[in-house]
């Protein structure tokens, strides 16, 4: 089976700083890949480069999604192509209700995919169904997007967006940060419910605990802008015990 996401020798910089230095990663449909690593190893940079954020400059290498050159696309084109980034710090948009935002996003993505826009009634049915699946009450849909949301509510709302937009490739950027155990479980279950043979996940995390809920097929260690170790889910447990120091040292060599 060929790769859905194929990253080859990726080099990227922010301003004057080189962050990614020859990162390669191949993700097949249906797989879950965890990327772990110490602070400053380039985890968030990878998620921004994949989603097309400004000021993250690719200097070398290639990224394809389903064979198409991802790096040539604008951020919204990547969203249409099926890239979804669950933000570490979801943004607040005052005055825009969650419902309005979800509907605008869904219809923008559908339009981008050449599908017709959903009418108000069908949208309402769909969003209610997905929200209930995540244990979200209606009033959270009526509130302003992320304004006054708790950390858990924000992350759950990211998962709701993921469920609605039905991405090919979901990137979770430190989704576990700021979550207590209960919130972690709910988010983890929400993500698990979205796993399918056609959908792949790149789960970026600092700690092993999220991986108790979202079982990865592969665990990669990212240090100094490169993947320096790849293993099974057991590698995450081992890292929890030994820390990253060994790997970082090795990356120096």
């Amino acid at each position, binding site marked *: 089976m060929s790769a859905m996401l194929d990253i080859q020798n990726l080099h990227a910089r922010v301003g004057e700083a080189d962050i990614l230095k020859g990162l390669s990663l191949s993700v097949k449909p249906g797989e879950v890949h965890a990327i772990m690593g110490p602070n400053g190893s380039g985890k968030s940079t990878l998620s921004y480069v994949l*989603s*097309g*954020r*400004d000021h993250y400059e690719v200097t070398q290498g290639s990224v394809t999604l389903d064979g198409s050159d991802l790096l040539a696309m*604008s*951020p*919204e084109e*990547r*969203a*249409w192509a099926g*890239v*979804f*980034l669950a*933000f570490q710090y*979801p*943004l607040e*948009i*005052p*005055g*825009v209700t969650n419902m*309005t*935002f979800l509907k*605008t*996003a*869904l219809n*923008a*993505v559908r339009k*981008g995919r050449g599908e017709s826009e959903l009418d108000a009634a069908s949208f309402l049915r769909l969003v209610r169904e997905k929200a209930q699946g995540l244990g979200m009450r209606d009033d959270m849909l009526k509130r*302003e*997007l992320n304004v006054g949301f708790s950390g858990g509510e924000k992350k759950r709302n990211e998962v709701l*967006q993921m469920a609605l*937009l039905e991405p090919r490739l979901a990137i979770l950027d430190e989704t576990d940060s700021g979550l207590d155990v209960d919130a972690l479980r709910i988010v983890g279950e929400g993500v698990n419910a979205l796993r399918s043979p056609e959908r792949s996940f790149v789960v970026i995390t600092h700690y092993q605990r999220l991986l108790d809920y979202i079982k990865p097929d592969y665990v990669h260690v990212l240090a100094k802008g490169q993947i320096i170790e790849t293993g099974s889910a057991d590698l995450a447990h081992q890292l929890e015990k030994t820390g990253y120091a060994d790997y970082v040292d090795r990356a120096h060599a």
Partner: protein
Amino acid sequence: MREAKATIDDATVNQVSDLAGQNYKYGFVTDIDADRAPNGLNADIIRFISAKKEEPAWLLDWRLEAYERWQTMEEPEWAHVAYPKIDYQDLCYYSAPKSMEDGPKSLDDVDPELLRTYEKLGIPLVEQEVLAGVRKVAVDAVFDSVSVGTTFREELAKSGVIFCSFSEAVREHPELVRKYLGSVVPQSDNYFAALNSAVFSDGSFVYIPPGVHCPMELSTYFRINEANTGQFERTLVIADRGAYVSYLEGCTAPMRDENQLHAAVVELVALEDAEIKYSTVQNWYPGDAEGRGGIYNFVTKRGDCREDRSKISWTQVETGSAVTWKYPSCVLRGNDSVGEFYSIAISNNMQQVDSGTKMLHLGRNTSSRIISKGISAGRSSNAYRGKVSVHRKAQNARNFTQCDSLLIGDRSAAHTVPYIEVKNQSAQIEHEATTSKISDDQLFYCQQRGLNAEEAVALIVNGFCREVLQHLPMEFAVEAQKLVGISLEGSVG
């Protein structure tokens, strides 16, 4: 109802695509023979206008008096706007579409070319279900200077509501016009109001009799068509005791290289227990990206809460005009009267806006509320100028002011100039102000969810304006939201 909605959506989609790439959709010029006065302003021109409209002697005298006062006045220079000196002798003060000479008896008599113009504007004059989808809306359209037709009149007449062109009101209801004209905005109130009083050509007139809740939204569309035609409409709305009316005006103008002057006067009178809600959606041609052309919008709007427990509410969405100078105000004369001002002012490219409100608290227990949202993009300048004044005898006056500015890009400017003048110790005045920018993080978040940059800006700005949009009549809120997005096209990326 669903069909009507679908029509609006399609029309809006077309509108958006037509406007892509800085094209002003309403930039067409209707080819109709106009009956226009020679350029220039003098007493004879005023007599010409008055004669054209077969006005009574008292109104001609009133105009001439205004003209005399105007000649002694200076054009105001205190606003935060800059524009080349206007040559008032080089403007045309009267232009009527020629086929109107004998006056149309019904819409069937109206020049079809005119009706097509309205169709292009997306504002069908003929009674039709699009606007009536939710509630019925009566439209009185001012085409340059003459009102061409009023719809729904019969139904309104049943409830005793008078809704007609100003000229017609002068003919049919002279006692009402004479009693209220200039009673809120006197002839010599300011330079532009004096000019308007001298040369106003037409406008709308509304009278709601005592105890009547006007059965539909009343609506007027202004449009400037002739080159070099200043448009000077006069609007007078009177809500008698216990009456209620909601009134909406929309404005568009064709695209032209030269600037066109628009100096209107709107007077509102609310008697005891009456309420007037006055909404404006203004998208006059703003000029091109380099600031060529566009409308000078110098307008005087004032409402008089003349008797106890009356209420006047202004809501405005200002997206057009090259230069805007406009301060819809409330005189809270009656005890327990209420004044409100909800405003969205958007400026892009080279537009200049100096707008705000005045709340004059005169009666006891009066309250006012000001919510102003200014959005500046491109190289535009956007100033809020407001005055809250509490008279010595105005016991227990209350005011709440919230004034938010949003900046887009790094070359636009926002200014806030609030004046507060309190002469009574019992007053409670609150003022809140914020200035913010659309962050790159917010934009990226929206783009990651599939919106392009312009859709993202439109969404964020609509959120910023939400508190004001909520106060628009429902039929127009959707269109206003689209307009917000259209006005900001080209402001990012």
